[in-house]
């Protein structure tokens, strides 16, 4: 059993942190620079996944299933969110014939 632990801990936790942060940042920048709603949703998924990765890494280091459960729930929620998001997108496309997220800017000031 020890070897699993050593195997896991060969990669320092910090590396996972950095990777996760990097993915998170990329996802974030992506959400900022793109105007296509579906790509923005993808970027959001990317951000969620970076968190998942981080949680799993922590879970492995803490040897605690809690975080993995959390990841599980995050996946559920992400799925639900994507469903809702896509339905909104469909509605939007139907109403405006566009998926440009800045086309909807009638509510302001």
């Amino acid at each position: 059993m020890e070897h699993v632990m050593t195997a896991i801990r060969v990669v320092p936790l910090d590396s996972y942190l950095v990777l996760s942060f990097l993915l998170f940042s990329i996802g974030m920048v992506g959400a900022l620079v793109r105007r296509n709603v579906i790509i923005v949703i993808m970027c959001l998924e990317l951000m969620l996944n970076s968190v998942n990765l981080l949680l799993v890494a922590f879970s492995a280091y803490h040897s605690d299933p809690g975080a993995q459960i959390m990841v599980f729930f995050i996946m559920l929620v992400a799925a639900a969110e994507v469903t809702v998001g896509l339905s909104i997108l469909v509605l939007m496309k139907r109403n405006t014939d566009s998926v440009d997220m800045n086309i909807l800017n009638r509510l302001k000031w």
Partner: protein
Amino acid sequence: MLYLFYFFAAISVIAALVVVSARSPINSAIALVVCFLSIAGHYILLNAQFLAMVHVIVYTGAILILMLFVIMLLNMNMMIEVQKPAITKILAVITGGLFFLVLLAATKQGLSTPVPATFDPGVGLVKSIGIALFRDYLLPFELSSVLFLSATAGAIMLAKKDNSPNVNRPPSSEPNGNAA
């Protein structure tokens, strides 16, 4: 192990960058699949087999397929996305970069994580997850049904086409209360 980590890390980062920068939504979606798969690889590296499976099923199997479906449904690939001005992009990258830098700097200070002495290699397996899920995390599990129910009901409600006469009402006909 370390090399594997770097391998997956590199793939996921590159794929993520492609997601962000690809012109076509389809390409983005495919890059996202790649990214998620590499993340699944990380999960396996971290001894979380169950999650890795769920991840692949949920993300690549469900979510991404859904997205592709929508992309095709809406015929999105044909549309040319309006690009944001360069200055916006640069600012976004700078902000994101700063964000990353700050987190990186914090990482350098280290994480005061108390690493437990005991280690249970079966943590990531279905059994332990299952036990935890249905014992300790029963409530959230049950509640997630509410979440799903509402998401489903809502999605249907929104996406369903009503036979209402004023579909695609021209935007200008709506009274704008904001006029001042």
